[in-house]
């Protein structure tokens, strides 16, 4: 039997990049996966298609999790269609790069809406459904250790996510739900390529002892561990999947 057989997972923002790899990996481990997207409908359908072709179960649900009502509705529809929710992966992300003087407060609010309010609303809606052994996994970032210029909004929101991860672990521990974060370093996704020039890319590689950028699969493998029964005693932890990246 596959190790996530009988479990249901929501992976927010899983039409592309790291989210898509997580959705495919959890499905390969046997979970019925909700592939969530807000804009990339075709990409989400193709992730679901790949999952089903590989013998897995996928349901595509549209929701912009930065909107509280849509986030809560995503959980409600998941319960309606799949009957249960065991694993919540908060992966949806918005990248923004602005020097502090230029930080647009609209952008700041959007970052917090996606990375803080969204996961909070999802968890609140999920709480009545998460069973003993349930899992909440937040995808955060190495920026908490490596402050890159221009990431006020992004690092601020991701730092808040790490902090909430630890708090939620203490609150949900008594009911057997674990809450952890996975913090990737630079991962070669479309978003990364769009925001990184070759010079910056070489700098990232030079500072990574394993000598390469991370892949979405590298992150998905760690999420799969945390989602599995093997990680039953791990909670409140931020796990770095960064190839040893040194600031």
């Amino acid at each position, binding site marked *: 039997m596959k190790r996530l057989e009988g479990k249901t997972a929501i992976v927010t923002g899983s039409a592309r990049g790291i989210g898509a790899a997580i959705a495919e990996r959890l499905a390969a481990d046997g979970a019925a996966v909700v592939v969530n997207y807000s804009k990339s409908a075709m990409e989400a359908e193709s992730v679901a298609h790949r999952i089903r072709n590989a013998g897995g179960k996928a349901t595509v649900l549209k929701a912009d999790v930065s909107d509280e009502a849509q986030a809560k509705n995503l959980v409600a529809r998941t319960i309606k269609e799949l009957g249960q929710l065991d694993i919540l992966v908060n992966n949806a992300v918005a990248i923004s790069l602005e020097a502090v003087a230029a930080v647009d407060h609209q952008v700041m609010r959007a970052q917090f809406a996606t990375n803080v309010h969204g996961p909070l609303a999802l968890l609140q809606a999920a709480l009545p459904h998460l069973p003993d052994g349930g899992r909440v996994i937040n995808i955060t970032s190495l920026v908490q250790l490596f402050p890159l210029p221009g990431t006020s909004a992004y690092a601020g929101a991701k730092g808040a996510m790490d902090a909430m991860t630890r708090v939620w*672990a*203490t609150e949900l521990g*008594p009911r057997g739900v674990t809450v952890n974060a996975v913090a990737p370093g630079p991962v070669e996704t479309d978003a990364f390529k769009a925001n990184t020039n070759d010079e910056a890319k070489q700098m990232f590689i030079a500072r990574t*002892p394993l000598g390469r950028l991370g892949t979405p699969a590298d992150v998905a493998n*760690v999420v799969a561990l945390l989602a599995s029964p*093997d990680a039953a*005693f791990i909670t409140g932890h931020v796990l770095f999947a960064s*190839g040893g990246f040194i600031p």
Partner: protein
Amino acid sequence: MSPPNRSRPVALITGGTTGIGLATARVLHEQNFAVVVTGQNPERVAAARETLPDDVIILRADARSLSDADRVASELRQRYGRLDVAFLNAGVGRMVPLEAIDEAFYDDTFDVNVKGPLFTVQKILPLLTNGSSVVFNSALGVYLGLPSYAVVTATKGALLALVTALSTELAPRGIRVNAIVPGPIETPAWGKLGLPAEALSGMKDAITSRVPLGRPGTAEEVANVVAFLASPAASFITGTSIHIDGGLGTSFARFARDDEARSPR
């Protein structure tokens, strides 16, 4: 069908006759590793021989002895010519208040917990394959602070420093170096703290009551994470640590549990 023996990956587990080491030996063996464990105490070696599968090699070796580390490395070289996983797990931990720490206790604790692991990695280095995984067994005390545990905590902190340094030094050879950081785990190590039974059970209860998951972990729950770090799924993880502590590291959990008890779900 299992692959032929020559392609079986090889794992070394120091201190593999009890507790976390023993559980890791079982888990890696189930995952088709050729497993070699070390142990020092003759009774525990004999007991492990009874419970571990026949093809698990058990070597008598003292974790503080560099010549024993040489012997272990040479056994591995002769038997397999390679090593894919090294779990530096052997360790000692006795509770001694600051006033009572003497030089012999200090030296012995550092010899077993730091010197042994460092020189073991040095001696097995020629055998470690590209893609291999070195895992040190640290402890949550490094983050929390436990009275009367200064020397042991210092050794476990030193292991995290070794992870930081060695991960960068060995990365060009494709060797990953990480630590596990266990919180309270149900193992025989509790009995070796040097506490009277009553004090021990009081301390266990006090610690467990602060674990968000509300229980101590099992040796298997730690072993599974070592197996993950040993696997290709962890191929981009190096220079870091994984906490297996039921959330105790998040601290103040006791208050959350009290709130939980007061308010219905």
